[in-house]
């Protein structure tokens, strides 16, 4: 997802007997659906895991602006350009809500940025793919934001108050993103043969990476059990992926384009779509930094941060100067 394979730092989920009194009380609150707030006692592993998860989520929002920014100057009309800019501005906002939520756990914003730039912190694998045509902007809104919503709606009920509240705000705004993407796909699929081919080509390239966003199959997902017990992961990777496929295939049918999966078919007994095997070696390569755009994305972020350093410093110097003048007066 926007946060994939988040390390919980634990090897197995503790049973009641192994827990300290504090841990038992903490788990009881979570089991009773009482939100954990920043100043409440929490196990160190919970805090660290949440910092990893929320910061990874925030970094994904910020890095996610880059593939879309690629098309701002080449949007096909002024209307599309204004809409795309509004969407990208939302992504920045989402990143900021999430950074703030992570900061309540005791990490600074600058530390999170430093961890992203050093490669210690991750962002979603999906943003390491290139946006080659305008149709990709449609496919991202429709598929990538669609997958994000699938994951984020359950997270509105997660156990950590600031994260849950950030998710509520984000979900309200995210459905605009998905609709604007589908709207682009609709226009293309109702257009010329060439435009329809663009829509199909974008779907071909974004479909599998979108399914990978949900993370590895449950059987191989090491940290899910602990995250589920802490209620910072509400539904499993495979459950979310299945829901996403089930809701998205009819949407593609309406557009008159087809998923690049010969094994995709409706199973009336399971009441779900069956889909083909996902190439997890590609996913692992992208996570390791070998996706098509990893180096470019990170280099762009680092350059923006470094180039902006003098502005940040100047603003602080200006604020300090004005504050000192006020004290004199």
């Amino acid at each position, binding site marked *: 997802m926007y946060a994939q394979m988040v390390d919980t730092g634990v090897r197995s989920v503790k049973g009641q007997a192994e827990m300290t009194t504090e841990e038992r009380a903490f788990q009881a609150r979570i089991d009773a659906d009482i939100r954990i707030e920043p100043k409440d006692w929490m196990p160190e592993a919970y805090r660290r895991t949440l910092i990893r998860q929320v910061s990874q989520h925030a970094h994904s929002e910020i890095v996610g602006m880059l593939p879309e920014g690629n098309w701002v100057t080449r949007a096909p009309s002024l209307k599309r350009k204004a809409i795309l800019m509004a969407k990208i501005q939302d992504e920045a906002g989402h990143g900021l809500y999430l950074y703030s939520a992570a900061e309540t756990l005791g990490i600074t914003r600058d530390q999170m940025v430093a961890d992203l730039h050093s490669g210690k912190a991750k962002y979603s694998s999906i943003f390491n793919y290139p946006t080659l045509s305008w149709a990709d902007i449609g496919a991202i809104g429709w598929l990538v934001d669609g997958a994000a919503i699938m994951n984020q709606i359950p997270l509105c009920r997660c156990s950590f108050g600031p994260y849950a509240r950030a998710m509520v705000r984000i979900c309200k705004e995210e459905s605009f993103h998905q609709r604007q993407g589908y709207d682009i796909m609709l226009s293309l699929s109702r257009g010329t043969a060439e435009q329809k081919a663009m829509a199909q080509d974008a779907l071909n390239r974004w479909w599998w990476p979108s399914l990978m966003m949900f993370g590895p199959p449950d059987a191989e997902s090491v940290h899910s059990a602990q995250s589920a017990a802490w209620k910072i992961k509400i539904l499993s990777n495979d459950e979310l992926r299945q829901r996403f496929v089930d809701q998205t295939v009819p949407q593609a049918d309406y557009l008159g384009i087809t998923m690049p999966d010969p094994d995709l078919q409706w199973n009336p007994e399971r009441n779900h779509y069956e889909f083909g095997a996902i190439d997890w070696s590609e996913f692992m390569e992208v996570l390791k930094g070998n996706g098509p755009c990893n180096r470019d994305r990170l280099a762009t972020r680092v350059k923006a941060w470094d180039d902006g350093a003098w502005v*940040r410093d100047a603003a602080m110097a200006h604020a300090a100067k004005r504050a000192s003048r006020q004290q004199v007066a």
Partner: protein
Amino acid sequence: MANEWPLWEVFIRSQHGLAHKHVGSLHAADPEMAIRNARDVYTRRNEGVSIWAVRSSDVVASSPGDKEALFEPANSKIYRHPTFFPMPEEVKHL
């Protein structure tokens, strides 16, 4: 890293006459920038007509450890709620 912009808490009053409500936080170098950033981060969809920004370091908060001492005494004082007093059916406007 030592030069991180300070953190501000942002409160927004919506159009409907309700009080300012905490919506989140942000970093800004000075008060003017805090208001401007709050406008961009928290009011992109007409969420409000007024913004307060307060330095986070200036917020005084109760501690979770004091929760019982502070809030439990109210539990036993149910006579503070009007429903504590049963009123005869026949009597109106009470």
